[in-house]
């Protein structure tokens, strides 16, 4: 029982990371209609930006987080302006392939700038609290923070999307870009905001991953497929669904080792996803029509 609870805790941590990535993927898909394959490398770059802030200004990882988020938001908007904007009027699949090329570019940049060895934010190990009232499960302060901050960010995004006009305009754009233009919705600005949110959350995911594990130029790329799985599970274009998707994928990946050989672990995310697609193709929460 403790085993299960313990893995559940870990699953929630992993789920938070995936959620941060999946919300961005989901929003970008909703508005620009393409699966953003560079999102994993956004996470990587965000994590490394965090590293730079830590080593340059001596910040702690938690203070580097907002800085990395801002930095990544800027990078994301920049990339959109120089690349994606130029091909936005073509088919989505072109954007998809372009984002794939962008993934290659970002990864090699990270490698050129920061090198290819493992790095980490802080030396040392943080030992967990033992929660005896909860069957003796172990809980690390970092993990608690990761989950709490993720929750906060999710709430913020939720409020933004439902309470602000810009948030609603995003949904309008994802429905019918031409009509949004005709209605006077400043499409370019909305797209920019989408990238700001997507980039910032990707950076959060990257920094969380860096805090929890280590930094490596392929760290984000490796997490990309589970992030997609979470997006699908939640229903494409549904940021709230992404939360549920992220948590389900995270928890089931961590728990899977209880029943199947660990070598098949990466297949778990896919198996859930494929099963889901076949049984309920719109995702848990209906995806966009």
């Amino acid at each position, binding site marked *: 029982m403790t085993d299960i609870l313990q893995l559940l805790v870990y699953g929630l941590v992993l789920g938070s990371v995936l959620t941060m990535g999946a919300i961005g993927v989901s929003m970008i898909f909703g508005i620009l209609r393409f699966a953003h394959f560079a999102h994993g490398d956004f996470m990587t770059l965000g994590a490394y930006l965090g590293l730079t802030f830590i080593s340059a200004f001596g910040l702690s990882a938690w203070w580097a987080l907002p800085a990395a988020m801002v930095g990544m938001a800027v990078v994301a908007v920049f990339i959109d302006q120089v690349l994606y904007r130029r091909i936005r009027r073509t088919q989505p699949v072109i954007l998809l392939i372009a984002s794939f090329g962008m993934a290659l570019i970002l990864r090699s940049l990270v490698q050129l700038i920061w090198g290819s060895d493992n790095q980490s934010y802080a030396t040392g190990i943080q030992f967990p609290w033992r929660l005896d009232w909860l069957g003796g499960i172990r809980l690390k302060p970092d993990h608690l923070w990761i989950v709490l901050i993720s929750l906060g960010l999710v709430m913020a995004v939720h409020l933004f999307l439902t309470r602000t006009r810009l948030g*609603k305009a995003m949904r*309008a754009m994802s429905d*019918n870009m*031409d*009509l949004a*233009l*005709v*209605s006077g919705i*400043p499409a370019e600005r909305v797209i920019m905001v989408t990238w700001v949110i997507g980039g910032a959350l990707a950076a959060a995911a990257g920094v969380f991953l860096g805090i929890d594990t280590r930094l490596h130029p392929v760290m984000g790329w490796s997490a990309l497929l589970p992030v997609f799985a979470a997006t699908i599970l939640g229903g494409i274009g549904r940021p709230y669904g992404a939360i549920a998707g992220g948590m389900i994928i995270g928890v089931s990946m961590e728990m899977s080792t209880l029943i199947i050989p660990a070598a098949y672990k990466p297949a778990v995310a896919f198996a859930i996803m494929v099963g889901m697609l076949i049984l309920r193709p719109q995702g848990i929460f209906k995806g966009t*029509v």
Partner: protein
Amino acid sequence: MTSLLEARDLYGGYGGVDILQGTNLRVEPDEIVVIVGPNGAGKSTAMKAVFGLLRIRAGEVLYKGEPITNAKPEQMVKRGIAYVPQEKNVFPSMTVRENLEMGAYLMKGDLSKRLDKVYTLFPKLAERRRQQAGLMSGGERQMVAMGRALMIDPELLMLDEPTAGLSPLLIDETFERIKEINAQGIGVLMVEQNAKQALAIADRGYVLATGRNRHEDTGPNLLADPEVAEMFLGG
């Protein structure tokens, strides 16, 4: 007095050949102007060009005397021009109410007055305010589309076939509404295939064919012209 809208000698298209071959359009304040013509004549293209959705290669568009050639749609809305496209004119996954709100995206302040106005014009929309627009019948969508455009309290309303797919009752109503709207001092430029009815309420009309102006006259005169009737209005 300057015209509300004036388009002079427009040339432009979708990349290849020019669809518009020197089209001219003019709307005076308080006027209802109707464009009729065969399918594929370039009517929708002309509307899109005026509204900045299409690059105009030559010619100019003036709004109240100021040039707005190739300005962004956002600018058009800010200046008080509203446009309802012919196809895909609602946000399918948003509710009726949200569709209307999007129409007033650039407007600051309380929307409830404007919403009420649209709801009185189209009571059906009030009834269905929570329905997703994508799931509505063809005619219902047209209402949503019109309603969305009216949310900005425009000075010039551009409508591309507003009555296509509407029931006779609603067509009558729609034209009534258009007259009402016009009576409040809003200029209306519309493309119509329901030509007889449209020309009947029009101050002026254009007949467009292959991107050029073929006839221009008052509505009643065009209706009376046997050639126009034979060629474009269905006898």
